[in-house]
């Protein structure tokens, strides 16, 4: 048996140091998570109750202030619609960039501007929709839930696109070539080979975008507004959790402030639940 090359002390040391540093990085990343979660539970758990989830905010300052039912349902509606808009568009553009565009100048331009769009503040998207959709009174109303969804979709789109593209690029060329060699048309290769292989990554990107969109206030302030009461007509003003939190947390009334923290905790738990479910559903073996 040939002897294994001896690992010098110096190399072993740097290996250990590296391991230590990386583990530290992971711990550092976890610290704010634990602290914030702890703080959130401390401030918001007290507000959670049956009525909290089952009654609408009454808008009252004194007396019975109600719960946040309309906000919860509103968030689900608005984010679901935004996801339905952003994900097909985003994955579609990512597919274009990886399958057809590659290094062509047009694709480079698209990729560049999509990157730039990730840096636009959410409030600017809200303003843009305000100027183009709300002020002009499209579909007969000023503020409307679906307009808020469009603003959120604009926010999600670059994230979904870029994350999907990164993952789609990692699908090995050999896999594609094998499928093509078997005589499958391009669209079949995409639908049956490329997308399913990249699915976990696409789900990751989508979840990140959804988490972001669910917690954003600024785009909704100018587009969907607030309403105290459950409202399913997305063509009218719709309440949502971030707006509810934003409104309540600045009030000089401790019960309203507590309700706001309860709503924040609820939002985080909802996203947690969604992430869990999505991960379970899309679990596939990794490429290696």
């Amino acid at each position: 048996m040939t002897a294994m090359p001896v690992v010098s002390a110096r190399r072993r040391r740097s290996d250990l140091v590296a391991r230590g540093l990386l583990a530290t990085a992971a711990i550092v990343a976890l610290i704010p998570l634990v602290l914030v979660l702890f703080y959130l539970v401390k401030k918001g758990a007290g507000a959670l109750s049956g009525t909290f989830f089952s009654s609408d905010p009454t808008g009252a300052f004194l007396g019975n202030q109600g719960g946040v039912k309309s906000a919860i349902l509103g968030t689900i509606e608005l984010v679901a619609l935004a996801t339905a808009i952003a994900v097909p568009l985003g994955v579609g553009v990512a597919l274009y960039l990886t399958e057809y565009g590659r290094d062509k100048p047009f694709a480079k331009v698209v990729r560049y501007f999509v990157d730039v769009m990730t840096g636009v503040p959410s409030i600017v998207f809200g303003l843009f929709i305000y100027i183009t959709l709300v002020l002009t009174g499209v579909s007969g109303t000023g503020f409307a839930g679906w307009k808020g969804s469009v603003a959120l979709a604009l926010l999600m789109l670059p994230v979904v696109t870029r994350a999907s593209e990164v993952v789609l690029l990692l699908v090995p060329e050999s896999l594609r070539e094998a499928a093509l060699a078997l005589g499958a048309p391009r669209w079949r290769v995409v639908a049956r080979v490329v997308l399913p292989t990249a699915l976990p990554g696409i789900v990751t990107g989508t979840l990140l975008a959804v988490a972001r969109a669910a917690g954003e206030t600024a785009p909704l302030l100018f587009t969907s507004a607030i309403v105290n009461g459950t409202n399913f007509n997305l063509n009218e003003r719709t309440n949502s959790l971030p707006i509810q939190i934003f409104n309540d947390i600045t009030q000089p009334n401790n019960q309203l402030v507590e309700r706001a923290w309860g709503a924040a905790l609820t939002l985080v738990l909802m996203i947690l639940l969604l992430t869990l479910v999505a991960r379970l559903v899309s679990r596939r073996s990794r490429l290696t």
Partner: protein
Amino acid sequence: MEARSLELRGGRSLLERSPLSGIGDKILRWVLTALAAGILALIAFFFIRLYVEAKPAFDRFGIFGFTFDNNWDVSRQIFGALPLVVGTLITSAVALLIGVPVAVGTALYVTEFAPRPIRAVLSFTIELLAAFPSVVLGLWGVYVLIPKLKPAEQWFSDTFSFLPFVGGPVAGPNYFIGGLLLAIMLIPIVTAISREVISTVPAEHKEAALALGATRWEMIKMAVLPYSRAGITGAAMLGLGRAIGETIAVTLVIGNAPQIGKQLFDQGYTLAAVIANEFGEAASDPVHRAALIAAGLVLFVLTLAVNAIARLLVNRGVHGRRATKEAAPA
């Protein structure tokens, strides 16, 4: 293999595709290209519309005057955005410097070193950070970070005052806390995507390095990092985007002073924060409103510039190393 077995009735080969299947491909190509073009058109429309709304401000101050004048005085109707631009750059730089190494380190740890059972739990937990609404993180920053970190910041400022941009009295809300919050916000994004990227490094590359006698860390340096470099950069871009554009959390912890702070722990202002703070009341004043939209536009252009520079830097590194066909292009 006999040619006969590949023939169908009518002399067609089994391997020949029916004419119809070509249509599927054409449709797919057409639809996807239209989508990409549509996105570009949307962005162009976005840019133009905002420019039209911002024009009154540019007319009054000139494009360079608006961007580079160091004087944002609302009551006197003077709008020079330099302190905002500087604030945006400083907080984003701090966020990247803190956030990206932590995020990539975490991703590496989770994929390479963490014991199998806790791998999924750990990565899931980190992504949970993304679930916090920005207003919640901002408020946590106000009520917890600012008071708790102040003594440490003061100590740092006093001990390291020989460094440039350090030293002097520490303001409660300041650039550093803004940058720190942004780092916390970009960590989940960069970690999650880096993790995806790193986990797709082909096993053969890693095994080859290990077979040559490399230690674990050396294997990472030789096999994992070069392969994932472009993907990690993509992740960092997304993180940067988040940092530059974050509005509410930063507004709550940066102090909102329209000045260029002299040191890291001074108060400042960012382009996104000024829009959040002032848009409500400015809506009825045409010049002020135009100035705020112009600030949004400046932010847009800033992101354009930063992205272009980052691309240049990465491409220079990647081109030299592309060896295998399976390496991901930038």
